[in-house]
């Protein structure tokens, strides 16, 4: 096996790279959408839901991102839903940052309302962080932001600047 290179982003008081997880994108085929929802319980509004050790994040109409610390996520999803959806490994295509700073700091970058009344726990949204497209969701300790892997360093620097000043 080739050696894996891990993104090297130094953790600060409020910002760190999330622990590595498998990520799989799921996009429902029209003709089998009903069967897909039978096979897997998926959020149909912009939320995350937890099923055993897999988090399913709504990521657009009929699209989801599955996350898990388990290494065999793609094969498990295929086992449940092969042929019912486009199943694509994105474990290397995304980077996730964990932010524990107050929402007001993140509002320097994120143009949607992150107040508890508007963005409750388990809410998620596809938005921007500065100029970088990102998916954001609220966790019990703060927020997670997910971007294309190639933006990771830029996103990290932006968020650290916003949250640590």
């Amino acid at each position, binding site marked *: *096996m*080739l*050696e*894996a*290179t*891990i993104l090297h982003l130094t953790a600060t008081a409020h910002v760190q790279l999330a622990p590595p997880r498998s990520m799989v*994108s799921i*996009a*429902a*085929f*029209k*003709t089998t959408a009903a069967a897909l929802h039978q096979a897997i319980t998926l959020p149909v509004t912009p939320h995350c839901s937890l099923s055993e050790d897999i988090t399913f994040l709504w990521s657009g109409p*009929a*699209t989801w991102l599955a996350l898990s610390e388990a290494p065999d996520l793609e094969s498990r999803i295929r086992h449940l839903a092969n042929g019912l*959806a*486009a199943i*694509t*490994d*994105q*474990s*290397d*295509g*995304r980077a996730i940052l964990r932010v524990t700073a107050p929402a*007001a700091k993140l*509002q*320097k970058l*994120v*143009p*949607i*309302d992150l*107040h508890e*009344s*508007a963005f409750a726990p388990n809410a998620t949204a596809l938005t921007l962080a*500065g*100029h*970088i497209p990102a998916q954001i969701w609220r966790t019990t300790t703060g927020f997670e932001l997910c971007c*294309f*892997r*190639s*933006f990771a*360093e*830029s*996103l990290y*620097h*932006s968020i650290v*600047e*916003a949250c640590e*000043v």
Partner: protein
Amino acid sequence: MRLASGGTIDRTKILNFKFDGKSYQGFAGDTLASALLANGVKLVGRSFKYHRPRGILSAGAEEPNALVELRTGAHREPNTRATVAELYEGLVAQSQNRFPSLRYDLLSVNGLLAPVFAAGFYYKTFMWPASFWEKLYEPLIRRAAGLGRNARLPDPDVYEKSTAFCDVLVIGGGAAGREAAAEAARAGGRVILADENAPGAEIEGAVYLPRTTVFGVYDSGTYGAVERLADHLPASPGPRQRMWKIIAKRCILASGAIERPMVFGNNDLPGVMLAGAVQKYISHYAVAPGKNGVLFLNNDDAASLIPILSEAGVHLAAVVDSRPKSTELVREAALEAGTPLFAGSVISQAVGRLAVTGANITTSRGQSIKLECDFIAMSGGWNPAVHLTSHLDGKPVWNESIAAFIPGALPPGMEVTGAAAGAGLNANIAPLWSVKDAGPKAFVDFQNDVTAADIALAKQEGFVAVEHLKRYTTLGMATDQGKTANVNGLALMAQATGKTVPETGTTRFRPPYTPVAIGALAGPHRGKNFKPTRRTPTHDWAAGLGAVFIETGLWLRAQYFPQSGEDWLAATSREVNAVRNAVGICDVTTLGKIDIQGPDAAKFLESVYTNSWANLPIGRARYGLMLREDGFVMDDGTTARLAENHYVMTTTTANAAKVFQHLEFCHQWLWPELDVCFGSVTDQWAQIAVAGPRARDTLAKLVDAPFDISNAAFPYMAAASLTVCGGTPARLFRLSFSGELAYEVAVPARYGAALARALMEAGSEFSITPYGTEALGVMRVEKGHPAGAELNGQTTAHDLGLAKLLSKKKDFIGRALATREALTDPVRPTLIGLKLVNPGDRLRAGAHLLPQNVPAVAAHDQGFVTSVAYSPTLGHWIGLGLLQNGPSRLGEIIRVYDPVRNGDALAEVVSPVFVDPEGTRLHA
């Protein structure tokens, strides 16, 4: 001068400051303006055009005269209003627009030439000769007439941006605004109160933003505001200002009102001030503007100044009331103060040189009386500050009873309260837009030096529409946007044309309400952070080898890998030779990769690409051409079929996002019935091109058994999923951009750097060489492949020699419009190659192609050079170009004409494929 008691300044905190090099003292709580007045400084600037001496007119953001350069060095900010600049220890300010000094300004001679310098002067005078305008007249005018100077150094401050959401935004922290904010907070919900001024008391339950100006109203309840975090401090390590985008369900505008000057002769002399401002300087700052004043009014509101002057011990020589019989309120106030009242009278002129020394009063009986005074307080009434109500095109409406504009149609969600709505203003007002026979120097717009006579001139010249009046005279332009001028100006135009004020109307107000530093709008997005940067998985590996990087959109790509002493050309040529003679590797991760799956995937591809896809076997890739709906080429790439209903499309780097958007549009809008899903996998896979005669030998060492990489098992354009290097999942594509035997190998991005190292190791016996985008570019030019310079949005498939890719058997995007006669006319410039007749000459992209022996004029232009490269394979410069009737002119010698860069050479028109035209290397 400073009054012995009173005011809200903190007399225990003395602050030292400098104005025009001279040191003064003030107190915490002063503005620069109040501190200057306290020190008896009346002359603070010279006017824009005539260089007339000017003083402080107001006590607020509407100030047109007291504009200074604040701070020094890179922090220097021009056109800062002294009336809003909070005083701090060590503040340094300079007056503007004067030489050599404020007192002795040479250009004040302009005042003598005033009759010549009337409105429209520049448009009429500096017309001939036309050529003199740019080089002589304009620079001279620019030097003579100006406001402050830009520091011309990079802005050293840090700025922040943020978004805030609320249920109610209250704009304005005066009595009306504070009450509205408190009430909204009591009702629950999220409330923000924004106020321009220094902090006052907090409001319970509301977010209070002092020193914050809401400068603009935008769609969907969006408001722009700037919070001044550090402008009142000597220095600050933190951000200087913060720009807010506030999204509010409701907005309450409590922006107050702005007083109108009176228009009379020399009303611009230092010491002539708005009555409300005089009141504010006394009450708030404990500063009297002089010892002996005259009050000139046309309404009851201004009479509140009379007892205030009495209490402060400032002598009032007279009250001049333009209303024929004045009113009981004014009469009583004057009597109480022991001040003479001139009813039905006006000040015709102020008198003085560098400051006012007297007032010439014309009484109701036509008598002229001269009174000595060292300040004049004038009040022509108050204008509700309606600007924000009309940023979304609502027009203010004229209210006859208060002779002022009040808000008309409001932006959705906004209501207006207090003086901004016209409440409690202009009691018993009798409008006086200008005194009679005011003379040539009765100012309407102080900042732009526009007089009542200029308005009469504009009318005479036919510029009667209020928007024309503005542009012809410049009334209402520049930093104050006519806050103290617009209504007087348009009312005078109304009078001159015999129309009513509402018939004349107002000019349109646009954001920003007051000037906003560009730095605040940029926030953190400046310098290298202007846009985000995208890095490839092999970035650090390439940097470690000394690669020079180039920006391709947001990506950083290795451009070339110079070895010691090499310049870009030497490195690039070495890399090209290495690929053509042995093997090289290049990171191609940045090309868009779109994963396409679903029962209708093939149908989808058939519709977006011009050529056939339904018959592409599993395990094969094909070149695809994509047109726009108007028939022009949008992008190209290769798409591989990995399984029955599974494809991976590639795009050019530059067009990746555009193509993805295009596919989304097609799927969502044109063919929503198609059952297909697609997603970007550009970042998921690191992709490296391995090219050259030894490419297969190199890769053979890395692919895991039992994968067969032989030519028979894996021919040109094959595609497969496999594992490499002992189990790493991978995809292999036999594609060639260089024209050599070549592959692209993809692994999940985390393994990209390790794959590069493994390839270098495997190819070391063949002297494998990393190559960058320069070498990539040279090789594709050698092969005549169209790329960005040819896919420029103006070329068609025919132009690029790709007409055979336009299927005649199916419909596809762009098919119909691509058949338009003009788009298939062979006279259109079409792709050819260029070979210099004299190898020592230079080809440059952008040079024009002309026939020989005709004048070099546009009428003979037959095309241009699109891409150029030095070909180490051939030993000379080569080019690709677009030439009328190109393919039928092979062998012809034409002229390559480049006047901008002094190029003029002859070249032979050749096939665009310079190297290996039969393509034998591809299939090796």
